[in-house]
């Protein structure tokens, strides 16, 4: 039987704005399945985003949805979560939104280990504005603002999250559609700040400038350029050259921020 996505889609809000071949819809379906697996109630769940193609996602879902300003999703969401720690808070957005203009909020949300899940759709480009390079665009690649090749090195977003203190970090791809919901569900169930980076494709503004002849080629690239973290354990450094690891990359238990603040309240009230 086909999965019932309709249950979570806002009536009348489709079709979405994404181009044919864009992976964001695959991620949205994965997110819906994960929410269903975790049994999150619509009224008790906030889905928060910034600005960009990926950040339009919350509007299609029937929850408490907050489409904020460029880069600010994590900071808005922190306010929501502080006031209502009992709410499930999920952030969605793109690589530019999350790691350039929103980079500071991203690393500090990781550092606090506040119990929210951040899904970053990394298509290596600013799609909505027409294909400018982002902090995730590989060196040498073409974008509308790197006509001679990108001189910038790229962020490894998952490593950035681990370095900043996130306590659950995973990576998937839009090709591995059946893995997305499992990674997101595990992230939601983890207590603390969890980051799921989904390597995604933008055929319209990235693919056509970087010698991908079709969406299928881009999807094949996502398949061939990645290796599951478990399989990588058995591979030599030479075999792993140029490959990106997928799966759960990092997990640890550390004090969660709103629980720590509850202790602050207890101490303040004891001292009163």
């Amino acid at each position, binding site marked *: 039987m086909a999965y019932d996505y309709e249950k979570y889609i*806002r009536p009348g*809000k489709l079709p979405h704005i994404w181009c044919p071949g864009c992976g964001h819809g695959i991620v949205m379906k994965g997110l819906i399945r994960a929410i269903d697996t975790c049994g999150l109630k*619509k*009224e*008790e769940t*906030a889905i*928060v985003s910034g600005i960009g193609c990926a950040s339009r996602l*919350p*509007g299609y879902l*029937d*929850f*408490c*949805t*907050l*489409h*904020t*300003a460029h880069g*600010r999703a994590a*900071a*808005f*969401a*922190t*306010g*929501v*979560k*502080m*006031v*209502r720690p*009992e*709410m499930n808070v999920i952030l969605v957005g793109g690589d530019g939104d999350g790691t350039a203009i929103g980079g*500071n*909020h991203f*690393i*500090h949300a990781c550092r606090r280990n506040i119990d929210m899940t951040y899904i970053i759709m990394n298509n290596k480009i600013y799609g909505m504005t027409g294909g400018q390079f982002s902090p995730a665009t590989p060196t040498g690649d073409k974008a509308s603002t790197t006509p001679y090749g990108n001189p910038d090195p790229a962020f490894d977003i998952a490593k950035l999250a681990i370095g900043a203190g996130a306590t659950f970090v995973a990576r998937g791809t839009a090709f591995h559609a059946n893995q997305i919901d499992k990674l997101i569900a595990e992230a939601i169930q983890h207590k603390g700040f969890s980051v799921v980076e989904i390597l995604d494709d933008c055929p319209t503004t990235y693919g056509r400038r970087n010698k991908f002849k079709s969406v299928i080629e881009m999807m094949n690239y996502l398949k061939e350029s990645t290796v599951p973290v478990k399989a990588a354990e058995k591979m030599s450094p030479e075999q792993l050259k140029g490959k990106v690891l997928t799966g759960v990359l990092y997990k640890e238990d550390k004090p969660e921020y709103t629980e720590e*603040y509850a202790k*602050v*309240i207890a*101490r*303040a*009230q004891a001292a*009163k």
Partner: protein
Amino acid sequence: MAKKVAFLQGNEAAAHGALYAGCKFFAGYPITPSTEVAEVMSIELPKIGGKFIQMEDEIGAMAALLGGSLAGVKALTSTSGPGLSLKQELIGYGCIAEIPCVIVNVMRGGPSTGMPTGPSQSDIMCAKWGTHGDHPAICLVPASVQEVFEETVRAFNLAEKYRTPVMIMPDEIVAHMRERIVFPEPGELEVIDRTAPSVTPDKYKPYDTSFGDVPPLAAFGSGYKFHVTGLNKMQDGFPTTKAEIVQAEEERQVRKVEANKADIMKWEEYQIDDADVVVVAYGSTSRSARFAVDEARRAGIKAGLFRPITFWPFPEERLLEISKKVKGFISPEMSLGMCAGVIKGCIEGNAPVLGIFRVDGEPVNPGQILDKIKEVK
């Protein structure tokens, strides 16, 4: 029982005023000369089960503030000039998404880093025009520690009543001077809460104008689910580019304040009735001005003081009325003529406006104002 009396700074009074108003959430970033507001909130909020968070930067604090308010509680932040500049994009977000919140901005020297410990009144235009696009603006300018407390309560009332960000902007002198303050008893000052929806969740729209220009606001996590965006939106909160809806919604957002000016505006008139010369001054400068007006009266000059307590919306109509009967206005201010320009803009050239503009980190003193009063013929 005798009322509680204390000897407080303006900044401390702002924090206590916020608590009196029922504030339960503070998000901020440290900046001189406003930090005492954050410090008091960090001490007091957890005692009452409220939440305090120090964010990673100024705009992050503004974002958390809006998120916190949307989750259903009264929310405060404090900042100063550079921080006000950094918060501006999201002040606009608060205006278009209609999320109540209060921003204490302590005015220090600018532009840029300027004079962090020096007083100023040069953020006043930034309070109205700082964020891009058409939007409502409410800005209060208290002149004493007691008034900081009371106006902070009023700032929350206006934010909640009109579903919009409100700024309260003491200058650094008012923020840091210590004065006797008498705490109002609970119930003594009016405290207004946002209107909660009267419809069931399935019928709720966050911008439902069938309830008037200020639609009821539900809270995230309270059983209502809805969409909020910074894009031009329809009644159900979803984005639109439909010309007639965008025009109507933009006009309504501004009208919330413009049509209710009489409720929002507040000023004090001192010796105005027979005055030939009217000093228009607010904040700490109004204290020098009052002294100068008294001195002028003793010297036989009919001087008066007009003191805005609400700066935005500005009491244009009343000043125009006064301008028809006076020989001149004096605008002493710690800026290079921002307030003088506003006065000129509403008096239709009926009287000259003489300025005393100090941006050297020193207050305008009474002697300077008295000398200027004597210049008006």
